[in-house]
């Protein structure tokens, strides 16, 4: 059986026929072809699939597409400005070399934006603690933490 899921993605209405058991991340990647959202583990451990649903960071691999019915989603493709200007968090990752292979990066950036929204002036310790849902196999985290700290300052000003 299929069901129709309709929602808003990056400010535009989107809908598709999916199976009831379709995970949100598969709807995003396969139905909408927004492949910036990654699948690292598929077991809710790594955070690579993090997106925003109604303004809050969630792991799109650990929920059904139908749970997002009617919701307002933002994926990594939706945070830069229309003219291509990067979001301050993306820009900070670029400036501070917060990525190597880049696989974890979309999830890191989405999670970090949620973090800074909740903690506008985070200490390094707090960033490390609050980023525990996102794994990176390359960077050793130092530059990611630096990037988030820097972005928290630009996002405040």
């Amino acid at each position: 059986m299929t069901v129709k899921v309709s929602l808003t993605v990056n400010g535009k209405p989107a809908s598709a026929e999916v199976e009831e058991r379709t995970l949100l991340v598969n709807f995003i990647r396969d139905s909408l072809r927004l492949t910036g959202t990654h699948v690292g583990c598929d077991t809710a451990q790594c955070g690579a699939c993090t997106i925003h649903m109604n303004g809050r960071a969630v792991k799109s691999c650990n929920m059904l597409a139908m749970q997002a019915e009617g919701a307002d989603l933002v994926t990594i493709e939706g945070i830069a400005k229309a003219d291509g200007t990067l979001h301050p968090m993306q820009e900070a990752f670029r400036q501070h070399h917060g990525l190597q292979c880049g696989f974890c990066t979309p999830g890191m950036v989405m999670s970090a934006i949620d973090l800074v929204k909740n903690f506008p002036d985070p200490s390094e310790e707090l960033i490390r603690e609050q980023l525990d849902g996102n794994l990176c196999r390359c960077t050793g985290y130092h530059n990611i933490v630096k990037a988030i700290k820097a972005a928290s300052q630009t996002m405040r000003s």
Partner: protein
Amino acid sequence: MYSFSYQKAKTVADAAKVLAKDGDAKLLAGGQSLIAAMKLRLAHPSAVIDLGTIKELSGIKGDSKAVAIGAMTRHAEVASSAAVKKAIPALASLAGGIGDRMVRNMGTIGGSLANNDPAADYPAAVLALGATIVTNKRKIAADEFFKGMYETALQKGEIITSVSFPVPKRAAYMKFKNPASRYAIVGVFVADSGSGVRVAVTGAAPSVFRVAAMEKALAAKFAPESVANIAVPEKGLNSDLHAKADYRAHLVTVMAKRAVEAAMK
């Protein structure tokens, strides 16, 4: 994941009706445990009834005597609630330490309690604070609710609607986390109600339990040294790759001591 039929419940009565008709149907709250179990085919419900759209199940009401939290209230909402922080700061901080920020944005108190994972955090708070679990059928006292590993007093078709926590005089929760999953290897919640002390331990055994010897010692004198020499027996404690039973027994005393210290601040 095996296929299933999906529906959004409009009301609790609605959800109960579907559950009564189909014994293999399952409620879906945040899905942080259920979806994972379905992917592993450890759970394969015929139907999934999503509680996400039932407004009345979500929200926090509090006064100086008690805090009532709706079953669908997310961990992140409890952690940031001004009412919870004021009345029972230990509960807000417990909720803020569950899993990671994405899990806390989805996971709910009702789902956590119905699931009764041996390493879950909320059961320790519910048992130590002597909370009451309210369902669509009755009210269940914390002491009657947790029955064993992943087992509760909930009957078929019974739906948690809210949890009511009496406000303690002082309380604190200390957890020794599994660094990968953030679940409790051992977590101890100590609550002094003013008329008695309750100590609840999660993570150490197949289900949350109270430590009577510690409660008695703390009632006589509420100080870390009162529990420093009280050890729980190793027998019956969990032993796995994360920690052996003797280490968990040791951690219970250490975490209890730290919780008492924190509650006195």
